[in-house]
């Protein structure tokens, strides 16, 4: 059986995954188990099919006329799809397993089945998106994905906050979809069909417009600034394994869309790449800056997703520049880095979201300022979270570093080293990336330390408990993969490189990623680092064993009665950084009301709302809502006026008509 058929089967199984649970009683956990089993089967089949597709010389394709007036049923797997399908077949499966412990059907009789159904639909539709080769089919799959995500994320719609988040998401995704309508319409106009195949004639009319519409339309889903407005709320309010899938995979569908369209559009104007590079850098910086300001565990993670999308977009921008300038290295390093980061982010961000699920499950709040010292209660979760945090901060020796490293090399290469043509401006992205890196470190130190380290800031964590195996296994798995890829990046280079070659088909050259970057050194040094750590730790252990040791309270610098509440909070930890970036963040600050020698009880509030949503979009909507109803005056209930309208419009139309005719 050819890989494409298998993939279709796998997608079908994933999509139908939730149905068995719906047929069971609303409290039976059996249905949920069956659904998970189905999901596992689907994922397994899919992965097997992907492996199969490597063997196939030509890209497996199905293209049949179907029962709709437009388009065809055209699907195909090429290496580019494979990269994204891999995520689709892994993350949702793990999430579903996680759900067994996190969202027990028995505990959620009201919405468990609904969640299961739309979760499966979401997974399946994402699979279809990444193999669709026809505009109409793509749109259908795309919108099913968007709506399934909406319903899966708003299962707890009895909560107004969730409803609001869902509403914002719905508007955002709809704007995106409308842009895609326009884009595919233009594409059809330019190429004469909806088929997503490279334009036969060398040029596509209005390619620029198509590109812009694609960036906006897909950007809404991917979460490019300032189109990210829906992202934090939706991710924060969705069940955590849904957040994991949305952030880990669904955002990447936006990236996929941009890549697919750019690969199809023949000639790329030089400004395309520049735009994406700039947008990516801005998205990355702003995203991580906003993340630092958050106190809501999942909102923070959501913003950091925006940052990573920014990094990925920078890679795409570099690759486009490479296509413009005909520089294979830039394409290879830029897009290679981007795709590699797509995978890595999919892995460690899912890990972190699942992790946050365990935390919420244990303490029942998303507000990190109420937490602290959790690692004593949840040691395993803490260790896994640490791995995720180090990985997402792009620190060696984990996978985040490997992908950003490629991107760095590509950007450095735009300097025009050893005599090749240079592209000075692009290199400015390097320090930007460095700053993103430093901010990420600060951000995740804040998160990790505030949640897991120090002493508890509220009694919430008294009854906190470690998660069960169903929830731990997926996290351990993800952490393991992160580490493996981090230490041995060369393992995964091949599929990525194939994808790059497909994307930039005409420019593809012999040079391979392996020849451009020496990942062996990274592996070696990573191992050396671990060994050194081992040595130092054994040394410490030896010292500890041979000395007389004492335990003691944290030194209070002589202050008599320190309390846990006196710890440095996450907010105060990042206050100086937030002040540094006030021009992007516009933080809300209350006045500090400490007055006089013996001050009264004083309080001070500060928070970082979303600049675009809360300070730009919302006011605009408010205005529209206030002034749009004024038009209602015309529907004032007097029949006389209604008849007058009929009369007037007749006259007006006669006028318009007369304009056309020449007597």
């Amino acid at each position, binding site marked *: 059986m050819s890989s494409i058929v298998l993939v279709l089967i796998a997608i079908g199984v994933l999509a139908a995954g939730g149905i068995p649970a719906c047929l069971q009683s609303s409290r039976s956990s059996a249905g949920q188990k069956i659904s998970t089993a189905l999901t596992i089967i689907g994922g397994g089949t899919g992965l097997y099919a992907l492996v199969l597709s490597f063997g196939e010389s030509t890209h497996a394709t199905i293209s049949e006329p179907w029962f709709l007036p437009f388009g065809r049923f055209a699907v195909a797997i090429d290496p580019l799809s494979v990269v994204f399908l891999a995520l689709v077949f892994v993350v949702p499966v793990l999430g579903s397993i996680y759900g067994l412990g996190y969202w027990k059907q028995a505990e959620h009789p009201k919405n468990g089945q609904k969640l299961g159904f739309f979760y499966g639909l979401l997974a399946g539709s994402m699979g279809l998106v990444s193999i669709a080769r026809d505009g109409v089919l793509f749109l259908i799959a795309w919108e099913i994905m968007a709506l399934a995500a909406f319903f899966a994320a708003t299962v707890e719609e009895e909560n107004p906050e969730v409803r609001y988040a869902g509403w914002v998401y719905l508007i955002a995704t709809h704007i995106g979809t409308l842009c895609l309508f326009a884009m595919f319409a233009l594409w059809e106009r330019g190429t004469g069909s909806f088929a997503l195949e490279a334009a036969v004639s060398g040029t596509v009319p209005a390619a620029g417009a198509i590109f812009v519409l694609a960036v906006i339309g897909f950007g809404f889903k991917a979460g490019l600034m300032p189109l990210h407005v829906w992202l934090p709320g939706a991710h924060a309010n969705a069940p955590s394994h849904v957040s994991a899938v949305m952030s880990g995979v669904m955002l990447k569908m936006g990236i996929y869309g941009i890549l697919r369209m750019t690969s199809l559009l023949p000639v790329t104007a030089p400004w395309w790449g520049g735009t994406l590079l700039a947008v990516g850098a801005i998205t990355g910086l702003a995203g991580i800056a906003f993340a630092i300001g958050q106190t809501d565990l999942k909102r923070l993670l959501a913003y950091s997703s925006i940052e990573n999308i920014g990094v990925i977009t920078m890679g795409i921008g570099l690759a486009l520049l490479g296509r413009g300038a005909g520089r294979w290295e830039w394409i290879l390093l830029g897009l290679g880095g981007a795709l590699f980061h797509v995978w890595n982010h999919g892995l460690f961000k899912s890990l972190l979201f699942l992790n946050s699920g365990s935390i919420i499950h244990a303490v029942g709040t998303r507000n990190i300022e109420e937490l602290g010292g959790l*690692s004593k209660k949840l040691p395993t979760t803490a260790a896994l979270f640490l791995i995720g945090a180090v990985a997402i901060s792009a*620190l060696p020796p984990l996978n985040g*570093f490997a992908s950003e490293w490629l991107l760095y090399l590509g950007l450095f290469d735009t300097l025009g080293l*050893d005599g090749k043509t240079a592209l000075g401006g692009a290199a400015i992205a390097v*320090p930007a990336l460095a*700053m993103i890196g*430093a901010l990420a470190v600060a951000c995740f*130190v804040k998160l990790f330390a505030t949640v897991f380290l120090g*002493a508890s800031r509220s009694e919430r964590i008294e009854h906190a408990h470690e998660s069960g195996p169903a929830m731990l296994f997926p996290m351990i798995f993800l952490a393991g993969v992160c580490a493996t890829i981090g230490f041995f990046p060369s393992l995964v280079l091949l599929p990525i490189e194939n994808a790059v070659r497909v994307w930039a088909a005409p420019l593809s050259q012999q040079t391979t990623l392996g020849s451009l970057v020496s990942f062996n050194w990274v592996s070696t040094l990573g191992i050396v680092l671990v060994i050194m750590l081992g040595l130092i730790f054994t040394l410490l252990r030896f010292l500890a064993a041979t000395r007389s040791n004492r335990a003691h309270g*944290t030194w209070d610098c002589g202050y008599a009665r320190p309390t846990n509440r006196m710890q440095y909070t996450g907010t105060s930890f990042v206050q100086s950084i937030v002040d540094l970036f006030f021009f992007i963040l516009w933080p809300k600050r209350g006045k500090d009301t400490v007055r006089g020698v013996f001050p009264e009880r004083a309080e001070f509030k500060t928070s970082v709302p979303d600049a675009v949503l809360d300070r730009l979009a919302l006011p605009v909507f408010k205005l529209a809502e206030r002034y749009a109803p004024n038009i209602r005056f015309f529907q004032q209930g007097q029949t006389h006026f209604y008849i007058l309208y009929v009369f007037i419009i007749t006259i007006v139309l006669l006028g318009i008509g007369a304009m056309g005719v020449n007597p």
Partner: protein
Amino acid sequence: MIDNLIHAALLLFLPPLLLGVINKTKSWFGGRNGPRALQPYYDIAKLLRKGFVLSDTTTWIFRFGPAVTLATVILAGFLIPFGRFDAPVAFTGDLILFAYLFGLARFFTTAAALDTGSAFEGMGAAREATFAVLSEPALFFAFLTLAKLSGSLTLTKMLHSSMEAFSPETAAPLVLIVLGLFVVLLAETCRIPVDDPNTHLELTMIHEVMVLDHGGPLLGIILYASSIKMFVLGAVVINVISPFNTGSTAIDWAVFVSQMLALAVVIGVLESIMARLRMRRVPYLLVSALLLCGSGFLLLVR
């Protein structure tokens, strides 16, 4: 091979001496006799002989921090060429690894500091994290400039060829990034005017306040690690400006060591004649370092 061994030996054993030299210089400036130059070695040895005193708030992260710091700085040390001699480990893109190793160290030192749950250590960690946000880009601007000059992406080549590529039009960029790098060095190693290593309870400290709760062997490791860090970053600065290449191995090593000591003296002098900046001002200093490196780069590629 032999050079690599010397490299390792210097990396592992020389750094504390720099601290000693700095202190010696400062006390000499202060008209005091001061501790002997080898004092830091004794301090570290003494600390390693003590027992552990651990806060019961802390977890394994608290002990992990110093270990990671030490491991990373040593690893970083092997990526940097000393004098005209190539680094033991050199490969395309090692500069990024070099920078990110320090990032890794920062991650765990700050985490360890926050692990104590003490407000003071929190402050220190916060400042460390904040200043890095400015010093990292500065460092990368410098790297960009050097890469452009040398046309290579390995630290060894980049740092060596800076002088070979010296010419009237590269002079200005070089001067700018050297200044920038020097500020970064001071900030990263917590010297005046950014930080004052002598005091421990001043709430305006960065590094020293982060390690407030580390004692005994852990403190020893931290002391050792930070001296190595200074040595490594110092080596970077020295390499950028050092034109010497006599050809004879022995002389060149001697030259390198003397240059490092000279750098220590310079730092000592600076610390004696300058006052520490107000904490609010430090960002300005770092921003200016960023601008120095940035403009250096722009001058070059314009």
